[in-house]
Structures are given as structure tokens and as C-alpha cells.
């Protein structure tokens, strides 16, 4: 178990290193001399200042050395400086990270719970009206762009029937504390989390349904039935548990998409997370910040993948922890 985790962590670090190197070259692909761009972002462009910046960030050094400085910086959580926001990139990201984690994890929980539930129902009543209805429902949600679902949610629940707030993390200026604050944040969370969750719910529904129908025909299910176990026990303990394996794999694959979706969702709902930060960086062409968020997203995906790998091994007793 431990050696497995260690192995995966080492692999993750190598991938991360590669991403950082990619990031380094992407910055240099950005139009213009980075020092001039930074000077422009800081609102000054005289030669002396540009030269100072060049020295400060080691831009006058040869490329390999610059790369080394950059990697060393990231290893010490130094992601550079955002001149637009006048703050270190890592500080900006750390401030916004909790909101993004709250949003993505809630959305993930919603999508997995509802997806497995609907998928199980569809498989249980395969071929009936319920199955068809769930399948069509999932197909439609799978085809809707997230930003549009978000806007339709706002149109429906904020504009037409004023039930839910359409933007932000909490009511501005309300200064609520304790339980009232939690309720307030939860109210703001419902729409973004549902928006983000519904797309993934659709994929999990389809996957669970297909996978349950597949497992249902296997011999060990027949054995369980022959032993006289009740239908509910067979469905839950034998079919569902095995059918969940591909769903877990899919969840790991989707980590990156989930974070991409968070960028859109946070933008529409003005949710103060790193996705929204990425959008702001985009609007202001703040490349340091943009790439800082990109590295952070990649790290989140790596961690999430590690966790799904572990869960996979917990759910599937056949796989041993030796890699």
C-alpha cells in the first residue's frame, strides 16, 4: 500500500515537472518580450524599468538557467508576481482555492450520487418507460454547454421565480455569522454546484446503467440468485459494487474536465474561486497569473487522480496494492 502510494507520488511529481517545463515555454510563446509585457502590466514602460525587471526575473540569463530558476520558484510555491493585481500569484490562488474546492467537490458529490442512483434505476427497469425517460434526460444534459445551463438556471430560478441568488459566494454586506452564514453560502452554492454537477451526472448515469446491465449477466450473479439471496441484496452487494468500477475510473478521467467546467461556472456565477481568477487573468492578459492557475489546476488533477486510484483499489478487491 505504502510503496504503491509512493510510486504514484513519484510519477505525479515527474508529470508535474513536465507540466512546469511546458508552462515555462508557454510563457515565452506569449506575444512580446516578457519583461516588456510585465512592464506594460505594471503600467510603466521606460527602458530602465524594463531592464530592472529583466534582471529581477533573470530574463537576461541563458534559457536553461531561466528554466532552472522557474522550476526552483515553483518548488517553493513561488508562482511569480501579478502586476495587474499587485500581489504574488500564489497568494491570489491560495485565497481563492477554498471556494473552488467547495464548488467542485459539491458538484462531484451531486453528480456521482444522482448519476449512480439514476443509472441504477434505469438498469433495474431496463426497457421500460422509466429507463427511456432517464436515458433521454441524460442524453440532453450531456449535450448542453455548461455556460448555457448556468444561464438558463439564472433565468429560471433567479429572474422568473426569485428563489436563488444569481451570483456571488454570500450576500454582500449582510455580515451573517454562524448558521445563518452557512445557510447563506449554501443558497449561493446550489445553482453553481447543480450546473456543474448535471453534465457529469449525465455521464455517470449512462456509465452506471451500461455497466450494471453488463455485470447482471455474469455468473456470480446467477450464483447469488441460486443461493436464494433477495433481489435487493443482489443488486446492491453484487451488481452495483462491481458495476461501480468503471464509474470510478471515469471519475478519475473527468477530474480535468470538472476543473475546466469550474472555470465556466465560476465565471457565470461570479463565484470567487480560481476559475473566476483565471477568467480575470484572461481578460487582463495577465499571463503570469493565467499560467499560475493552470499549474494549480494540473496539481489538483494529479491529486484527484491519485485519490481515485486509491479508491479503485479499495472498491476492487482483486487488485493488490503492489503496482
Amino acid at each position, binding site marked *: 500500500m505504502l510503496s504503491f502510494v509512493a510510486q504514484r507520488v513519484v510519477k505525479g511529481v515527474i508529470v508535474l515537472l513536465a507540466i512546469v517545463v511546458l508552462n515555462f515555454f508557454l510563457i515565452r510563446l506569449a506575444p512580446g518580450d516578457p519583461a516588456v509585457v510585465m512592464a506594460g502590466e505594471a503600467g510603466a514602460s521606460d527602458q530602465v524599468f524594463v531592464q530592472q525587471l529583466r534582471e529581477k526575473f533573470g530574463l537576461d540569463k541563458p534559457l536553461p538557467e531561466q528554466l532552472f530558476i522557474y522550476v526552483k520558484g515553483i518548488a517553493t510555491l513561488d508562482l511569480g508576481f501579478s502586476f495587474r493585481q499587485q500581489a504574488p500569484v500564489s497568494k491570489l490562488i491560495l485565497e481563492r482555492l477554498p471556494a473552488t474546492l467547495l464548488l467542485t467537490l459539491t458538484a462531484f458529490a451531486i453528480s456521482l450520487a444522482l448519476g449512480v442512483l439514476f443509472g441504477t434505476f434505469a438498469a433495474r427497469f431496463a426497457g421500460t418507460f422509466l429507463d427511456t425517460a432517464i436515458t433521454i434526460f441524460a442524453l440532453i444534459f450531456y449535450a448542453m454547454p455548461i455556460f448555457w445551463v448556468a*444561464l438558463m438556471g439564472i433565468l429560471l430560478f433567479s*429572474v422568473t421565480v426569485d428563489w436563488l441568488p444569481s451570483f456571488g459566494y454570500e450576500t454582500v454586506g449582510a455580515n451573517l455569522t454562524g448558521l445563518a452564514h452557512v445557510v447563506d453560502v449554501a443558497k449561493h452554492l446550489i445553482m453553481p454546484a447543480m450546473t456543474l454537477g448535471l453534465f457529469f451526472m449525465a455521464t455517470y448515469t449512462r456509465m452506471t446503467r451500461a455497466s450494471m446491465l453488463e455485470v447482471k449477466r455474469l455468473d456470480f450473479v446467477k450464483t447469488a440468485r441460486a443461493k436464494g439471496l433477495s433481489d435487493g441484496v443482489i443488486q446492491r452487494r453484487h451488481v452495483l459494487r462491481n458495476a461501480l468500477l468503471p464509474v470510478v475510473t471515469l471519475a478519475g478521467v473527468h477530474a480535468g474536465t470538472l476543473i475546466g467546467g469550474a472555470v465556466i461556472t465560476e465565471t457565470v456565477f461570479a463565484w470567487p474561486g480560481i476559475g473566476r481568477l483565471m477568467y480575470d487573468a484572461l481578460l487582463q492578459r495577465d499571463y503570469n497569473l493565467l499560467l499560475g492557475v493552470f499549474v494549480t489546476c494540473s496539481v489538483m488533477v494529479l491529486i484527484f487522480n491519485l485519490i481515485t486510484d486509491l479508491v479503485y483499489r479499495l472498491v476492487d478487491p482483486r487488485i493488490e496494492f503492489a503496482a
Partner: protein
Amino acid sequence: MKQFWKSMLRSPSGVIGLVILLLAIGIAVFGPLLFPNSPWRMVQRPFLPPFTLSTVPLGTDALGRDVFAGMIFGARVSLLVGLVSTLVALVVGVPIGAMAGYFGGKVDDALMRFTEFFQTIPSFALAIVLVAILQPSIYSIVASIAVVSWPPVARLVRGEVLSLRTREYVQAAVVTGQSNTWIILREILPNALSPVIVLASLMVATAILLESSLSFLGLGDPNLISWGYMVGAGRTVIRQAWWITVFPGVAILISVLGLNLIGEGLNDALNPRLSREGR
């Protein structure tokens, strides 16, 4: 071929998807000819509600531009970006997967680590960064969508090639001294085609969603109107004018749905063995 169309037309999802796709292609190709209103020109007063004037059936946006015209011209961009970026992704992914599967060993290891690396990077975030850095244009959009969507192709092709490589007819080709390129191109790839076609149809759908998301964030080609751009532009005035965001979104939904249905139909028609597995 006849067999293929027969089973394709037997699956209801395939038929519905084909009808939708043909309609969308028809609109994209002929629409702008039949409906010459420029989507950028002011044709009426701003915020004209839909269904009030027959010349501007779906109303106007905040600048008095024709929403219907925008949707018709937008079909071109969405379909074009979807198709071309998928083609580029295939051009990158198929050779990588084929080489990895055929040569095996170290080549396979190296190519697959490379593929996995691209699969780990959050795709939409990478697409945003690429388009932002290369500056938004139809080329940078196609390129970045292709960059984030080729890995599944490579993995799929590798798996197929891996299983086909040991078949007797391939061994026979090796024995008769055919070159590796010839064997891959003439013996193996044609037999690995059907799952690739299914994947490609689904990739076009994903590419359309990606393009619309990029345009929505303001990373679209500034010279081309697209559905995502329209929704993004209507977003700030959604309280006054719902139609500006609703109609283009419906267009995206229907096209993507159509392509997904085609993917399902193709799956049933081309790999009856896989069809029950879903995706």
C-alpha cells in the same frame, strides 16, 4: 457498406442524429446564401423581442443585430471548427497510436507516457491558455482543440493495433517482406477503423462544445460570429432579453445531441459487440 447503412438506419438514435446533422450542414452551407442579412449589421432597434417581425424572426440583440442571422452564420463556425479540429486530432493521434501499438517496447512506452501526460493536463484550462497566448483566431482555436483531444485517439488506435498485430494475415504480410509502413497502412489500420469512426463522431460533438465555451469566454475569432459568442454577448442583458442567450444555446444543444446520437448509431452499426457497453 449496404449492411452498414441498413443497421445504421435501423437504430432510431442513428436516424435522428443523421437528420439533425444533415439539417445543420444544410443550414451551414446554404443558409447564408438564402438569408443574406449580415449578422454584424444593425437591422432593427436593439432588444426587439422575437416573433414580432417576420424579417427578424428571433429578434435583435443589444446592438440591434439579427439573432436569426447570427445563428445561421454561427452554424458554419461551429461545424467547421468541430470537423477540422477532429481531423487534426486524428492526424496526430492515429500515427502515434499506430506506432506505439505496432512497434511496442520502448517506442510504445515513450509514446504512451507522452500521451498520458497530455491526458493528465486539464484540457479546457490548457485550451484557454493556448488560445490566449496564441491570440484568438480560428486557427489557434482549431489547434488548441486538437491538442487537447488527440490522446484518446492514440490510446484507442494503440489498443486496436496491439490486438491486430498478432493476426495471421498480418504475420503473413511480415513474412512476405512488406515494409512496416505498408503493413500498418494497408493491413492494420483499415481494420481498426470502425471504433475510430465512432470516437471521431463523438469528438466532433465535444469540439463544438469546447469551441462554444472558448467563444463564450471571449476567446472566439473576433471576425467570425459563433453561437458561444452570442450567448456570451447576451449574458449581461439576460434579465431584459432572454432570447439572445436562449436561441443560440438551443442550436448548440441540438447539434451536439445530433452528433452524440450519430455516435450511438454508428456504434450499434459498426461494433455490435461493443454497443451494449455504452461509453
